């Protein structure tokens, strides 16, 4: 298992990997008020998003706590495709319907699930462009098909929508085709397996790759008590948007503005061989009396073949102000792990690898 994950991680970072991402929730949104509706349910801004452009969006519940995230693409002025977390797909569709039917029935917009209709194949890695160029008529040059854009074209003789978005931090194309054609496209890609070292990878590898980039998984790195700011995602919150979007009011409460809230940080264990246990409790002073004062917990933890060591994401009280400090994880068997608080972005903080 560990060997397989390490092999798959290296394949993506060095050449190109492929993931079946079809389970991702997909919601087709049509109507003249679609853009306005998005601005009310997401924390960030949608007014200026142009046609064929993609944007990451963060959704809060009315209590200001993060409930879902995903990339939404503007396909036409009155047409958007929203993606949701896999597990959140049905719940988010209900959430949109609830707010539309009970609060804003005057907005002209329809939501329809297209999760099962589109098959999604994610090809990611430095060789992704060369691989895709073998079987598509879409101009893939970096000038004409930029990061966070969408294109329509033929892939292996199948009409496709290709999204240039990335959950691994590498150059990535998400190929979407009508699901009945998925195996045909998959096989066409694998005709070039040896040329590019194309390697299928699974969800566990996806988890490692995204954590190296500090990309959160809602429900793993969040638990319904985490605000966008707790995640260090202030850049994704539009406080000056004209409409009071869901969660805005709650985010102005004194409790959600506290400096000592649990905040997302990275952890590097002092012993590079240690892979911390997810869920492990974090203390600042390991010598204190039991019961110790719990200051946070590990949310995601893996061994990174790229970094050559274990690494973790964690929620730590006041963590954003504690960079470089040591924290401790006392385990049930009496051992105590030590780790340093670091940025949650372990790899390529400027995003240069995905922007080539």
């Amino acid at each position, binding site marked *: 298992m560990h060997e397989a994950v390490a092999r798959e991680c290296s394949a993506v970072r060095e050449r190109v990997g492929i993931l079946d991402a079809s*389970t991702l929730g997909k919601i*087709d949104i*049509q*109507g*003249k008020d679609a853009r306005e509706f998005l601005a009310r349910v997401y924390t960030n801004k949608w007014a200026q998003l142009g046609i064929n452009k993609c944007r990451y969006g963060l959704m809060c519940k009315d209590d200001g706590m993060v409930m879902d995230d995903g990339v939404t693409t503007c*396909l*036409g*002025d*009155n*047409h958007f495709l929203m993606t949701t977390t896999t597990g959140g797909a049905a719940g988010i569709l209900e959430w949109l319907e609830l707010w539309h039917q009970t609060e804003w029935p005057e907005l*002209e917009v*329809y939501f*329809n*699930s*297209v*999760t*099962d*209709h*589109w*098959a999604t194949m994610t090809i990611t890695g430095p060789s992704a462009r060369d691989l895709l160029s073998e079987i598509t008529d879409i101009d893939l040059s970096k000038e004409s098909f930029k990061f966070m854009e969408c294109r*329509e074209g033929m892939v*292996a*003789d*199948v*009409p496709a929508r290709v999204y240039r978005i990335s959950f691994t931090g590498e150059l990535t194309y998400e190929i979407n*085709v*009508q*699901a*009945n*054609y*998925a*195996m*045909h496209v998959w096989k066409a890609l694998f005709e070039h397996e040896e040329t590019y070292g194309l390697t299928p990878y699974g969800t566990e590898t996806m988890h490692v790759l995204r954590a190296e980039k500090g990309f959160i998984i809602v429900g793993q790195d969040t638990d319904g008590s985490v605000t966008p700011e707790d995640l260090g995602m202030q850049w994704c919150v539009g406080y000056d948007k004209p409409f009071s979007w869901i969660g805005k009011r709650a985010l102005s409460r004194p409790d959600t503005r506290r400096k000592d809230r649990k905040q997302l940080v990275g952890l590097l264990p002092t012993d590079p061989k240690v892979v911390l246990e997810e869920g492990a409790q974090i203390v600042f002073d390991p010598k204190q009396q039991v019961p110790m004062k719990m200051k946070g917990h590990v949310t995601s933890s893996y061994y990174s073949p790229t970094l050559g060591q274990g690494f973790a994401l964690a929620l730590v009280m006041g963590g954003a102000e504690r960079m470089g400090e040591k924290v401790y994880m006392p385990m049930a068997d009496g051992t105590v792990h030590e780790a340093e608080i670091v940025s949650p972005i372990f790899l390529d903080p400027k995003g240069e690898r995905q922007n080539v």
Partner: protein
Amino acid sequence: MSNVAVFDQNAGMGVLAESPLVHVKGVKGSQTPGVVIREKAFLGYLTLRGNAADAAFCAGVEQALGMPLPKQPLALNQNEQKGSSIQWLSPDEWLVVVQGGTEYETEMALRSELSGHFAVVNISGGQTLLTLSGSAAQEVLHKSTVYDVHPRNFPVGKAVATNFAKATAIIRRPSEGTWELIVRRSFADYCYRWLIDASQEFGVDYE
């Protein structure tokens, strides 16, 4: 039209399409089957949204599809000439099923007839359709769903989206002797295997 991105998602000949049940193989022509199960693969499916109280919307749908918009809950209308149907799903939502490969032209026909606030979405890759016939077809459904499929409650021309074997499915009764099940792609394998298993005691013919 530029406000909504519509494109023909059908690949040409030479591209092998695979239904969600491509991997399952069955037994054709059992001696005295009580249940006959067939898949009608690769049909075209569109979700239609709009306001049934708007006469222009209703007229536009009928003009485009050659059959009236069902306004009664759970109603199923069919166009036998075209081999197509439209089914009530919710007060502002219908499922249009057309012959495979005609979903794009059907969507364009709807879009040219309709105006104002409506939506059409191609969902043809998202599900497949199974037909159940034979003397015990209704018995198998009795075992599989809590919905009452007795003819007094489920006449010809009715269609419901309901629980099926703890998953979800659409159950339709297009004619006296035939039931239709529309199952989501991700549930198709499970629902199919459930049906085969539930039909064993009656003798089953499936492919």
